[in-house]
Structures are given as structure tokens and as C-alpha cells.
């Protein structure tokens, strides 16, 4: 297959990660986080999504050179 699905997945979650982290930083300390029990959940989860997106992008690059897993 010409398209490695890990690349678009990595890109999409990377973008989500940037959006949530950025929004979390901009709204840090805002009363909207009373809902999430005082956690800045946007910042925390944004970082998780960034990491996940990064791993997917990295896997997509590494595996492309290697043999097809069966």
C-alpha cells in the first residue's frame, strides 16, 4: 500500500496535541477547569496526544524502510 496509515494518524493526533496544549496554556487557571476537578486537562491530555502522535509518525518512518511485517 502506498499510504502508511500511521503517518496520517500521527499527524492528526499531533495537531490535536498542539491545539489542546496551546489552549491549555492559554487558559491555565481559568474557571473552566472546575469541571475537570481542578486539573488543566487540556494541557495534560494535549501532552499525551503529542507523544502519541510523535510515536506514530516515528513508527511510520522507521517501518517504511524495513520489511513488511506479516
Amino acid at each position: 500500500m502506498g499510504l502508511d496509515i500511521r503517518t496520517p494518524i500521527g499527524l492528526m493526533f499531533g495537531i490535536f496535541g498542539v491545539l489542546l496544549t496551546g489552549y491549555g496554556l492559554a487558559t491555565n487557571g481559568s474557571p473552566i477547569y472546575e469541571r475537570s476537578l481542578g486539573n488543566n486537562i487540556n494541557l495534560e491530555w494535549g501532552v499525551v496526544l503529542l507523544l502519541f502522535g510523535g510515536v506514530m509518525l516515528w513508527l511510520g518512518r522507521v517501518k517504511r524502510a524495513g520489511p513488511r511485517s506479516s
Partner: protein
Amino acid sequence: MPHGIELGGIDYVILVVYFLFVLGIGVALRRQTKTSEDFFLSGRSIPAWIAGLAFLSANLGAQEMIGMAASGAKYGIATSHFYWVGAIPAMVFVGVFMMPFYYGSRARSVPEYLKLRFDEKTRTFNAVSFATMTVFSSGISMYALAKLLELLLGWDFNFSLWVSALIVLVYIYLGGLTSAIYNEVLQFFLIVLGFAPLVYLGLRDVGGWDGLVAKLDVVATANGYAPGAWSHSWANMGSASANPMGVEWFGMAMGLGFVLSFGYWCTDFLVVQRAMAAHSMAAARRTPLIAAVPKMLFPFLIIVPGMIAIGLTYAGSDFALPKMADGSWNYTMVIPQMLAHYFPPGILGLGLTALMASFMSGMAGNVTAFNTVWTYDIYQSHIKKDATDAHLLWVGRMTTVFGILASVGTAYLATQFNNIMDFLQLVFAFVNAPLFATFLLGMFWRRATGHAAFFGLVLGTAAAALHHGLTLPAGAPVGIKGGWLMAPPLHAYSSEMAQNFWTAIWAFCVCFVATIAISFLTRQQKTHADLVGLVYSLTARPREEHLAWWKTPEGLGALVLALAIALNVVFW
């Protein structure tokens, strides 16, 4: 009524980014879709892990998400029987024992396997009922999505319906099954990563697992059950009256664990199609086994939120489930209500996108399966037998348009006649209940004949209808719930679920016995040569000696089963 959710700009941005990626995948795959095999079977080129996640995701429609969370609130951890007793053993069975025949026969669909193994009429019976069912389920799913968005966000029903239909249409039209499968993998990760923070926040609010169990004890005693009825999966299954499901252990293990689950996971083309698209026999056999690993963890993602919601509601926290007009809890609002309660703008967009993703993956699963069955099993075999491949590809694309329009039509029908939908789902349940008996005998008993398979199915379906007509769940009105053949009914079940399980058990047994009996009375039309690759005793075992033991389907299957047993024991 729940509080409406106000979306912020950031939430819309996330939703739009998701739509762009979904459509982009379809566009990127467009050029690779040249033959009908590319369109309907991804050119049999998909690696096992992708097929596996798609296998899982295609079944993970929003009705599953909303419904399982609702059951988590209504019945507690026992809902996980649908996974740890139901899905997992069936997924192991289809991977280890049945996939060699599905994949090895080169059948392009499940009905086509029936044609190769039995005859044309058995295939057509299965193809027509399956095709109709997929259109209706995708329509009902779209209806549910549009209704939910109307309720939560105040979006126009028609707008939500047409926009979601159009997006699914575009990406399947362009890239066929590959596009659906790739998007299902994307949707799988989105569903996991969108709902995980909800479970995290919910568990923190309820006081961790111990806090949850303590609060569920209150729920159990308030409803007249022993404490623990919501937090133990087997301990209260000794009798039907001791657990909120109203089911005893035998009906659970036999009805759900054996007949219904094996019937669904082993014969439903919607999921089997994903494995058929895998690039090799080894990959096809591993597809359901790989899917089983995340599948058995899904209760923590979608059932636990329901348990948290009901626990908090009874504890008088500031989270409470809404009530229906008749005063009962509106369990279907668990997920939407929790999204609204715990998620601030930003992550709310992610959670909502995950919900949309689950609707789309379920719908795309139905549409791609419908396409294939219509084109290969109905069009090519009855309407235009000498169709060229290019023509079939064109028919497939047109069928995508037609199938989605028909689903939209069904969604509108559902707004007008809810009873018709209930009635149709009941009929499909009757048709599906005996199906596993036919496949089991077809694959493992070479004497089973075509006439026997067909009339066995018809009799099994009739037995399901008969059982339904003669019995009634306690307290239910006569009619769509049963009891329409006899007053008072022959037997009253303690719950609708118990009645469903026993309907399936009867249908399976009647089909099984009838197929054997009729096989002895009729002549086998197929020669041994015809049956090679289709029947266990006439097929060489696939050898996978070059693989490490835990990578072979048998080894992986044993590991998966051991994990499922461990989960049953831990949450006994």
C-alpha cells in the same frame, strides 16, 4: 432533560480537523482503487494489525458505545459478559478454526462461502437478509447520531444527518474498503484517546475503584439486590432473580457466550470482511485475535463510565443521570452527560469528535459490507452474470451512493415509525439466531447438504419466531416483546435479555438438529473435490512453523483466552 452543551471555537476546530483527515484518506487512496477486488477487499493487502483494529472498530458503532455505557449503569460489571464471555471466545474460534475456510476458499464474502459450500438458495437467503439488515442498522445509527446532536448541541437534525452521510459517502466512494479500514483504525485510536480522560476524571471523582465499589453497593441495596450485584460479574448469576440482568448462568454462557456471540463474530460479514482483506492466511487468522486484545479491555473504557454514572447519581453527587418521562433513569445519556459534566472546552471537542468517529466507523462498516454483498452475491449472481471487473467496480461505487441514500431514507423512516424499526430488528434477530449452526455443520461435517442448510435455516428462524411468540418477559405487554401466539404465554422470563438468550438457544438447536436430519434424507450434490478447502476434514491445516509459538494463531488464541479467563476471575 440534559443540559445543552456550548461548544467553543477550539471544539469546532478539532471537529473540522478530523473531518479533513477522514476525507483526505479517501482522496489519497483514490488512485490505488483500480479493480473490484481493490474496492471490495482492499486487494487482499492489509497487514494483520490494521485489519485487527478495523475488525474491532467496524463493530464499535455508537450504539455500542452508548448502549454498553447504558448497560454498565443498568446492570453493572456483569455487562462485561458481552466481552469476556461473549466476544472473546468467539473471536478466538473464528481466527483459529474458521478463517482457514473463509480465507482459503478465496470466497469474496460470507454469503459466497455458503454458495461454494452449499448452494445458490442458501447464499441468496443469507445475502438478502444481510444486505437489508445492514442498510437498516446504518440508518438507525444515523438517526441516533442526528437525534443526539440535536439534543446536545441544538444542531439541526437534517444537517447532521446529511453531513455525516456525505462524509462517509465520499471516503468510501473514493477508496472503497481500504478507505473504510484505514479510517476505522484512525477512529479506533480517536475513540480510545477521546474517552480515556473521561474514565480518568470519573474514577477520580468517585473515589477510585474502592470508592466506586462502595457506591455501587448502595445502588444494589437500593434496588433490592445483595451488595456487590453491580460490582461482581458471576457471583450473583446463580439464579435469575439475584442479578439486575435477570439471567442465570446457563442462559448467559450458552445463549450469549455460545449461540449469539459465535453467531455474530463468526458469521457476520461486517467483521469477517476485515479479515478477508488481510494480505495472507496468517494475517487473516491473526486479525480477530489481535482485535480481541483491545476488545477485552473495552469494558474499562465504556462500561465503567456507566457504573461511575449510576454510583454518583445514587450518592447524591452533583453529577446525576436525567430521568425519563416515566420516572426511570435515562441510561442512554451516560456518555453525553459525562462529557458535558467533566470536559471543559478543548477536550470536549475531542470527546465529541470521538463520539462522531464511533458513529461513522459503524456506519462505514455497514456500507462497505452492503456494497460487497449486493455487488457480488446479488448483482453478479442474479442480474448480470457476465459483468466485467470494471463494470463491477462501477456498480460498487453506485451501490455506495444507493446504500447511503437508503440509509438516510431509513433514518427518516425511524423518525416516523419507531415500531417498524423494532419489528425489523426483531425479524433480523430471528434470521440470525440459527446461522452459526449452519456454518458449524458446513465447515466441520462434510455430509451436510445444500437443501439441509437452507431448510435448517428456515426452520431455525421459524423456531426463533415461535419461541418469541410463546414467551414473554415479566411485566412486558403482549406484542413486540413476545407472547403474541398464546395467552397467557407458555413461559414468563424474568427479563427481556433472558428471553433473547433462550430464543437464540432454541433457534440454534432446531437448526442444528434439522440440518443433520435433512442431510441424511437428501443426497450430497457436492463431490469431494468441490469441498476441498471448504470443509475441515478435506482441508490441509495451514502451517505456520516459521513463526514463534506466540505468533501462531493457536498460540495467540490460547494467550487471549487465558487473559479473558483471568479477567473473569478477577471481577468474579
